[in-house]
């Protein structure tokens, strides 16, 4: 649920990039940060290990400007994808307003995607997030690394309907801003006071 401060006149939305390890969540955030003008973006915080795998989370704030006198901000987070960082993942989903699930499109990674998606839903249920009406965008990343899993295969395996999906090559920025725009649009459309 968005954080609303009537006193400071600001509304903060929390977007979380979820997905299996090495699927490109941090790459998405780096690209977005590089694309946005300094006027809109805050500092990028990256907490990774020596092997450049996210240990805790990556984070940066975006200030879109004022609407109706309220400053609108988005806080973008990634979760650590590795299986043993369950605690960090749970924390970061707390209070989320929208999620991008970054899937690894390489053939042979379908099962990891499915497992991670199920974990995300379990964590959301723990936080009492209404999963069916919650803004989720599915990004099929790494579309340049053939052989690929088919588009729609994750949804079919999980029996999902109505989840928008986008193809991406985050390392080249392809599909990254579309994904962000799509999830942000859903978040604002579903915003209630």
């Amino acid at each position: 649920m968005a954080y609303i401060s009537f006193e400071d006149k600001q509304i903060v939305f929390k977007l979380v990039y979820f997905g299996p390890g090495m699927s490109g969540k941090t790459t998405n955030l780096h690209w977005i940060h590089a694309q946005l003008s300094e006027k809109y973006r805050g500092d990028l915080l990256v907490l990774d290990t020596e092997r450049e795998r996210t240990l805790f989370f990556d984070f940066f704030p975006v200030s879109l400007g004022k609407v109706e006198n309220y400053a609108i901000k988005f806080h973008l987070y990634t979760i650590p994808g590795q299986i043993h960082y369950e605690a960090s993942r749970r924390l970061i989903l707390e209070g989320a307003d929208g999620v991008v699930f970054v899937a690894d499109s390489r053939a042979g990674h379908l099962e990891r995607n499915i497992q991670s998606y199920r974990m995300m839903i379990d964590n959301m249920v723990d936080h009492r997030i209404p999963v069916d009406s919650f803004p989720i965008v599915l990004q099929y990343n790494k579309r340049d690394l053939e052989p690929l899993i088919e588009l729609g295969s994750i949804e079919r395996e999980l029996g999902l309907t109505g989840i928008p999906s986008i193809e991406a090559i985050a390392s080249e920025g392809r599909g990254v801003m579309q994904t962000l725009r799509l999830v942000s649009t859903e978040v604002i459309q579903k915003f209630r006071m």
Partner: protein
Amino acid sequence: MRNDLSGQSSGIHRELSELIVSTGALISLLISREGVCLSQAGGLASLNTTALAALVAGMFAATKEVAAIVGENQFSILLQQGEKRHIHISLVGKRAMMVVVFEDYTRIGKVRIEAKRAGEVISRLLDAPPVERAPDEEGDIYLPRFKEYALNLVDRIFRVDEEEDGVHQL
């Protein structure tokens, strides 16, 4: 977290300010568990409170897991000792954390006592029912118009250079 602190925020700010005065601390902040800075007193020009709030929320969650491993429900205080500056973090109720940044480590006892006192007062303030807002105040956001303008900002700032719309939906 919906922040209906309308009636409480001045009380919270007053407590944080008093904490600064009584301990000689540089800054004190109240942070939500989701990682948003709810209120602050004092200040440091170089301090990025947005990032600090996100990190402190993360630290506390990680510490909670550590507590669980050693058979505790949670640790209610975290203390970080640096060379010049130190941070005292304490849980406030179930939803928030209070951060005090101070320099004189000999005052740690005072910081602990005052933070505990302020935390109890703020916890009560947070638990108080939200003050009813007058209709004209509530109406200062007209939702359909707000959404339309906000969506325009999203379209403009998160702009897509590639024109292709690669969105699929099953």
